[in-house]
């Protein structure tokens, strides 16, 4: 027994000596320092990586902020991924984070691209440069059939024809925080086959505040609602044609649709309703209905227009109405003995518009008073009422046009156009083929100076 115990004791002593020798070998000073340095450098490297990743994440958060829930989920997944990596495999840890950084960078770039694309979502058009030059266009192609020659524009011939509509380039640019410009150039197809560019609007716009906005240049006279709202892009209007009373001057319209001068406008937001105003001072009309005085004023007498519009949104949502008045002195035409005198023109009228969701109702009337300084007084009365109701992509509509000219009015009777008394009913259907293309079809029955005419019009109108 003692022998066995002595053997065990010797074994234990030998083991202890062996262990001591081994520890002494491992814990030599040189190796201890090396181990310490290695651990320190690894720890510092991990710390640097952590700080770097946090800084990168913070910087990136300025561009991509995610909802709290997503951030928490992401952080959790990062923590889960990083914890074992720190404990066991530093190189794996770095690779994991590098991959995460790479994917983060890619997603940030992707988000930035999406932000760039954001401006195009609402049909803003192409945008260039620091001044945010935007280019937008409108166009239309029509087909028409009429069983009578009356009631057509002067540059159209025949009873059934295709007709190139207007090709409209619309440009805006921001010159400063409060100053912008707007230009609308329309390329029109003449019956001779020529294409003539026509600068329909060019404006410099000063946005002082909501009560005062100043526009200087050539604009659409704020006379009534339609002429102020709808211009040459026919895609924007529900119908194929403008109302008869609001046709442009070069299509036989009786009103001064365009003018060159200055326009002041603004909106007062009052308790329960808004009040909009538009006031213009312009050169006014030239010697005939088509003559626009863009470069001068033959008689130096300015035209004035004023329109007031109430929007009682707290009483009836979607309703707006108001009066309009226009005053001008039309210069005499020295080449025409029937137009030897200046004409004082006074136009007054009003509009009632109700537009809410699917429903659209527009009504406008105008009284055009021409008072020759020789003593003759002539009155023309006209207007229209239009209603439509949207059902999905379809929009059926109806319009009634009425104009009663004074046949003795020399301003109209001496014009190149036939200004005919008009009594016309139009029924039509608009179909939105795509977001920026509408097909329209309308049938009109009209009486023009006691002559009947039936007209069918088709149109594809688009915006690009």
């Amino acid at each position, binding site marked *: 027994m003692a022998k066995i115990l002595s053997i065990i004791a010797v074994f234990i002593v030998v083991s202890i000596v062996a262990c001591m020798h081994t520890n002494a070998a491992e814990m030599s000073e040189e190796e201890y320092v090396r181990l310490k340095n290695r651990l320190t450098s690894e720890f510092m490297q991990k710390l640097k990586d952590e700080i770097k990743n946090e800084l990168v994440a913070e910087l990136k958060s300025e561009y991509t902020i995610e909802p709290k829930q997503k951030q928490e989920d992401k952080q959790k997944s990062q923590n889960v991924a990083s914890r074992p990596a720190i404990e066991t495999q530093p190189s794996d840890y770095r690779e994991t984070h590098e991959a995460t950084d790479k994917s983060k960078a890619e997603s940030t770039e992707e988000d930035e691209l999406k932000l760039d694309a954001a*401006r195009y979502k609402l049909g803003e058009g192409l945008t260039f440069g620091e001044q945010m030059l935007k280019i937008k266009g409108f166009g239309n192609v029509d087909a028409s059939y009429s069983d009578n020659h009356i009631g057509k524009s002067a540059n159209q011939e025949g009873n059934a024809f295709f007709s190139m509509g207007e090709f409209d380039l619309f440009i805006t640019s921001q010159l400063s925080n409060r100053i912008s410009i707007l230009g609308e150039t329309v390329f029109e197809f003449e019956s001779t086959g020529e294409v003539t560019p026509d600068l329909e609007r060019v404006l410099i716009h000063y946005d002082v505040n909501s009560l005062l906005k100043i526009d200087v240049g050539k604009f659409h006279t704020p006379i009534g609602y339609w002429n102020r709202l709808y211009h040459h892009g026919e895609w924007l209007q529900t119908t194929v044609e403008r109302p008869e009373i609001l046709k442009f001057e070069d299509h036989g319209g009786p009103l001064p649709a365009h003018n060159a001068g200055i326009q002041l406008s603004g909106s007062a937001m009052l308790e329960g309703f808004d009040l909009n105003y538009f006031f213009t001072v312009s050169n006014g009309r030239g010697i005939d209905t088509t003559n626009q005085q863009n470069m001068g004023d033959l008689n130096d007498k300015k035209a004035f227009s004023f329109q007031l519009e109430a929007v009682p949104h707290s009483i009836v949502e979607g309703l707006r109405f108001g009066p309009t008045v226009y005053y001008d002195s039309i210069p005499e035409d020295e080449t025409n003995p029937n137009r030897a005198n200046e004409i004082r023109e006074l136009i007054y009228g009003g509009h009632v518009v109700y537009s809410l969701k699917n429903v659209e109702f527009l009504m406008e009337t105008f009284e055009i008073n021409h008072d020759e300084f020789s003593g003759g007084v002539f009155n023309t009365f006209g207007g229209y009422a239009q209603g439509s109701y949207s059902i999905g992509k379809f929009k059926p509509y109806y319009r009634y046009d009425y104009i009663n000219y004074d046949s003795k009015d020399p301003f109209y009777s001496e014009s190149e156009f036939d200004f005919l008394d008009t009594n016309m009913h139009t029924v039509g259907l608009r179909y939105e083929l795509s977001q920026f293309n509408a097909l329209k079809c309308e049938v009109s029955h009209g009486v023009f100076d006691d002559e009947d005419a039936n007209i069918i019009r088709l149109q594809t109108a688009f915006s690009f």
Partner: protein
Amino acid sequence: MKHIPGILIAIFIFVVVFITEVYANVAVIVNKSNPATDIPYDDLKHILETKKQRWDNGEKITLVFKPITSSETQMLINKIYKIRCEDFCQYWMLKSYNNEISEYPKMPESLNGVIALVSKISGAVGFIGIDEIPQGSDKIKVIRVNGKMPGEDGYPLNKEK
């Protein structure tokens, strides 16, 4: 005939569920540098309708919407603009065409985009869901409407039931 009440109940439940899903609570977020903390509902309407285009300090207001398909933007179209969602694009084009606006609203594809734009543009105002408000952001803040925070009783942009 005996199935009719069941069908009617199913239709009713479908309509209720549909309405509940279509409209969402909308939070109004602005850049942190914007001094506004509370805005009257009428002012918010005027901002959305672009009748008011500048903050009280003169800074230009930039509208930032989520995509048209989002329930928040659809809620605004129904409640404020009162037009069809299909006409929203035409609405802005007409405003631009009439020189009423010099800048279109921004409409990024994602929530991140909305928040990033409001973070970047000091005059921006964005419209997001209540449950999408980022917590602890030092770039944006939620503003009250008529003195109410989103979700509180009487908050004007709460979902309609």
